[in-house]
């Protein structure tokens, strides 16, 4: 019975989300069934679509894996947007400085530069939290704002394509970056590039780091109870900095992949962060939490969310409804699905009250809060 409920509730939630979406589609004068069909084929309908969805999911996987690391250490990182930008900028500078290196060296180098750039941008709120008691939610939100303005400054001034100055068009973009740094396409005829396996590998790496290394153990111990960790001789402050730096570095890697795996092969700004990141800094949080803060489960979770984005965009093109519908649908699906998982739990609990005895008390409600680290 419990199993049946477990299977049915997410179905009902998805159905409820689709029902909501159907109402909006009908109100817009579109056929909902055609819409859902377009959404499905747009996200998963062919090898080409599956690849496009994978590429769209890459930043979500990376940000999500990073979020898993920081949240496991009870550090909340909402600075993905800024960290993606920082990683992209440093990798872009690297490619501009060393365009002649062969791909076998330059590609790993720009990816590494992305890691470093994002890592630095993540370490700043880490240091502020650990040594100056500045809450990381505040500092990461603020650093997102700083990163956008810094990107705009860099791209319209020191890094601007000299041609743009010469022509007087002043488009805030770099020159075309070295082809030696371009991430190669792995399935010809699709957008499936090296960024996809790199992201998957990074997520696997995050998993190993969290559960198979002493650092990971320290991070999780700090997340579990900073006081107990400190009593056990774990350097809490340094762990907090590590958690945010690691989390930021994965977002930064996403930034590098966005530049060198993009169709454009250069960095450009439209003045906002979302134009470049596609809001991956926020959507990655959804992917991570939906994947249970487990780096490996973040992969399918991000892929699904990526499909939601590519599918909704395809729906827009097929039915010619306003593009804002795509973002609306994303929101609706997230809200319904996240609500459903707990409904399932509750119904399951009622049906199988005995379950309470099989499990030890729920750890998460009795463990200390995230922010206590700040207070120590």
């Amino acid at each position: 019975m419990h199993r049946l409920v477990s299977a049915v509730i997410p179905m009902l939630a998805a159905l409820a989300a689709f029902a909501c979406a159907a109402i909006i589609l009908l109100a817009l004068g579109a056929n909902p069934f055609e819409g859902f069909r377009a959404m499905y084929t747009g996200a998963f309908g062919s090898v080409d679509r599956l690849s496009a969805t994978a590429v769209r999911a890459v930043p979500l996987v990376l940000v999500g894996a990073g979020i898993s690391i920081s949240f496991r250490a009870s550090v909340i990182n909402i600075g993905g947007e800024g960290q993606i930008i920082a990683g992209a900028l440093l990798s872009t500078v690297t490619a501009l400085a060393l365009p002649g290196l062969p791909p076998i060296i330059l590609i790993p180098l720009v990816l590494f530069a992305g890691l470093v750039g994002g890592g630095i941008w993540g370490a700043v709120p880490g240091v502020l939290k650990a040594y100056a008691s500045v809450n990381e939610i505040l500092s990461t939100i603020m650093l997102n704002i700083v990163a956008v303005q810094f990107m705009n400054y860099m791209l319209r001034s020191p890094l601007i394509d000299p041609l743009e100055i010469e022509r007087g068009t002043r488009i805030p973009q770099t020159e075309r970056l070295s082809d030696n740094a371009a991430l190669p396409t792995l399935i010809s005829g699709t957008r499936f590039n090296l960024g996809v396996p790199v992201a998957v590998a990074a997520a696997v790496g995050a998993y190993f780091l969290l559960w198979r290394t002493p650092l990971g153990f320290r991070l999780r111990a700090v997340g579990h109870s900073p006081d107990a960790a400190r009593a056990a001789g774990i350097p809490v402050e340094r762990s907090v900095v590590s958690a945010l730096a690691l989390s930021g570095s994965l977002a930064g890697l996403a930034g590098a992949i966005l530049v060198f795996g993009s169709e454009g092969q250069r960095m450009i700004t439209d003045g906002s962060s979302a134009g470049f990141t596609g809001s991956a800094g926020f959507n990655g949080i959804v992917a991570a939490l939906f994947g249970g803060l487990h780096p490996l489960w973040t992969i399918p979770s991000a892929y699904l969310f990526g499909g939601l984005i590519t599918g909704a965009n395809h729906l827009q093109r097929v039915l010619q409804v306003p593009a804002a519908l795509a973002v609306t649908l994303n929101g609706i699906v997230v809200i319904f699905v996240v609500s459903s998982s707990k409904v399932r739990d509750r119904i399951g609990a009622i049906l199988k009250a005995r379950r309470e005895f099989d499990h030890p008390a729920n750890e998460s409600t009795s463990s200390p809060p995230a922010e206590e680290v700040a207070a120590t």
Partner: protein
Amino acid sequence: MSDFFTATVLFSTLAAGIRLSTPFLFAGLGEMIGQKSGVLNLGVEGVMLLSAFFAYWTALSTGSLWLAVLVGMLVGLLMGVVYGLITVVFHAEQGISGIGIFLFGLGFSDLMFQENVGTPKFTSKLPSVDIPLLSDIPHVGVAFFQHSAMTYTAFVMVPLVMILLRRTTFGTNIRAVGENPESADSLGVSVARMRFSAIVIGNTLAGVAGTALVLELGIFQPNLTAGRGFIAIALVYFGAWRAPGVMAGALLYGLVEATVITWKALGIIPRSLSDISAMAPAVITIGALVILARRVKPPAALTQPFSRH
């Protein structure tokens, strides 16, 4: 350029700072009340956008600002009920559901705007309410006593929220369920009801924030809030979960923003540094916290769902 230090410029900058801080203050106080009860709401931006659009649409189609404010509040309240259902009744993950609300608000306000309004047009704006006598004081009057009713209300909310949280049973219970839901529950306080109420109040205030923003400008555009909802969340941490602290944060951010934009207009900040100077509000807010170095604990049960075992 020569008169950048004159009283006129100084006090008009103050006035601009107070105008800019109004939406931060409403939304920040709302977020603070929610967090006090143990619920983090990352969806403020979405609620602000929804309320802003519906308030604007109401003003545009009825011409009544009163009705517009009412609708803006109601939309906030409705979103509060939705968020309360999601987080309190369904026990959903607060981080994800907040981002879900943000995405929904961002998209749906844009969709409704395109379907129902389309081409931007102005509606009547909130009139400036001059406080008798005080508004006639040279300079000071312009800075502090010639604002819209919304702005005065925002600042009046500060002591009201303090009294609500500190001096009433309702407020004590909200704080109790945010600090230790188990013991509050054992004392007969309904955790669910308190949190639900706090969320509804908080989201209504977020709705008022969006309404204040759009009616001050008299026009709506997709993504009108431009990140102000997220800044409001940050300011709750700046204010260390105290209403005057949130007010200080809102004023600091708003005043630095106003100063930077004024200095740009006066040519004091060269054009080549326009983006660098736009970082100032964010950097100074962090810097101020570093200097203050407050070590304040957030509500202990923040982000933790509660259910009786």
